[in-house]
């Protein structure tokens, strides 16, 4: 990259008709074939101007404006095809140089005290120097050892213990969990009653199934010995509900001994 500026062994910047082009021609003329290389070699018009001044001792005062302008315009024409932005920048630089040149040629106006010593080249020179300084800084920066390119950062595997960290809880967590259940239960109570009612209806079906094909069944036989209290109560409620809906009939023997349940045959 800095090959053009500081070549120890000159490398051709381009080959034109098989002939290596070792240096940018001093007369500023750059053969069209080399233009692409030329554009890649310089970062922009500032970079090119800096090169011409430093390498060929081009006097900023005596830049051959007519020639330079003509050639810059040739580049601009060629660049317009696919590098319009860069073309514009070269065009701007040409305009700047012409402006400086023209101001240098005009007799200096009677300057006010604050204008004293102002050189129309000063601003361009300031920019050129600032750019050159940053260009050098970039080169120095690139020489500093860089992670990944010049050294690698150490990173060793951390062996995780097999037992993962487990959550801890305390008594209050349990209490809070209960509170949450309580709060939700209140909200859901209506819903839950409905669920239970449906289960009564399920037992009603079950009782009816047991009565199917039988004349009557003893009340106690409707209750499984394994039944929970809840099941007993639900079964009882189911029987009452069936009686209320006149789907079965409950009767008791005169000696108050046996209770019978009989399906009411609606047929």
């Amino acid at each position, binding site marked *: 990259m800095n090959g053009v500026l500081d070549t120890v062994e000159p490398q051709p910047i381009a080959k034109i008709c098989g002939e290596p082009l070792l240096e940018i021609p001093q007369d500023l003329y750059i053969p069209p074939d080399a233009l692409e290389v030329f554009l890649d070699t310089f970062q922009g018009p500032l970079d090119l101007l800096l090169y011409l001044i430093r390498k060929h001792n081009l006097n900023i005062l005596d830049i051959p404006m007519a020639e330079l302008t003509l050639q810059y315009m040739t580049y601009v024409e060629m660049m317009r095809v696919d590098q319009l932005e860069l073309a514009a920048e070269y065009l701007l630089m040409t305009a700047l140089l012409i402006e400086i040149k023209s101001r240098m040629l005009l007799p200096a106006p009677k300057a006010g005290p604050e204008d004293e010593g102002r050189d129309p080249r000063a601003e361009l020179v300031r920019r050129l120097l600032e750019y050159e300084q940053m260009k050098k800084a970039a080169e120095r920066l690139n020489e500093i050892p860089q992670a990944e390119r010049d050294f690698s950062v150490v990173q060793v595997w951390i062996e995780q213990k097999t037992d993962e960290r487990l959550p801890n809880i305390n*008594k209050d967590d349990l209490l809070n969990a209960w509170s949450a259940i309580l709060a939700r239960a209140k909200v859901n109570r209506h819903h839950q009653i409905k669920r239970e009612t449906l289960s009564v209806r399920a037992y009603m079906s079950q009782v009816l199934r047991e009565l199917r094909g039988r004349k009557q069944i003893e009340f106690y036989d409707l209750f499984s010995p394994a039944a929970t209290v809840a099941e007993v*109560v639900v079964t009882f409620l189911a029987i009452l509900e069936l009686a209320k809906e006149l789907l079965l009939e409950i009767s008791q023997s005169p000696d108050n001994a046996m209770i019978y349940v009989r399906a009411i045959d609606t047929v």
Partner: protein
Amino acid sequence: MSAPSTPSDHHSLNTLDSLSPEKTKQILEAALLTTQEPLSVSELRKLFDNEFSAAVITSLLQDIRDRWRDSGVELVTVASGWRFQTKADMQPYLERLTPQKAPRYSRAVLETLAIIAYRQPVTRGDIEEIRGVSVSSSVLKTLTSRGWIEEVGHRNVPGKPALLATTAHFLDDLNLRSLDELPPLEEMKSLIESSENQHLPLEQPEESSH
């Protein structure tokens, strides 16, 4: 424009003749220290353009392993090759650098645990009854594998559902001597009763009849 020359470009690689065993080990060590993934012997041979046999590399790796023995980091072989890793006793210290958020149990886990703790022994169906939603197997598995709940029997109803209760380990982990030390549920009596009542739909059954 060509890439700028960099310091590393100027190092001419030593020919193998000039690579001392010590330097060879340094290179192996540097490679293993900079890659988290295990490196196989055949990969490590690439460091030297395959000019050392696998046996030579393995022998050097064993030397390196011995040299690291007294360190907090060790060279180990795993399925895909060799790697450096920290020893287990470093873990408690290293964890302090990256304090992870303490893991937390989900509400489902905590509520299930609370129901089992306060209402034991209970079946899964009981828990679902109280929580109003089904209990996923993973919730019970979490609590079982933590050693906080266990099956203590089966309820004598169709399906013979398992009865769940908390363990002594649960009490230990919560620093309790007995279940009596759980926070009292005075203000929740109504809930427990109401949830019991919900087993028994005695509340205005008429409401539901059309």
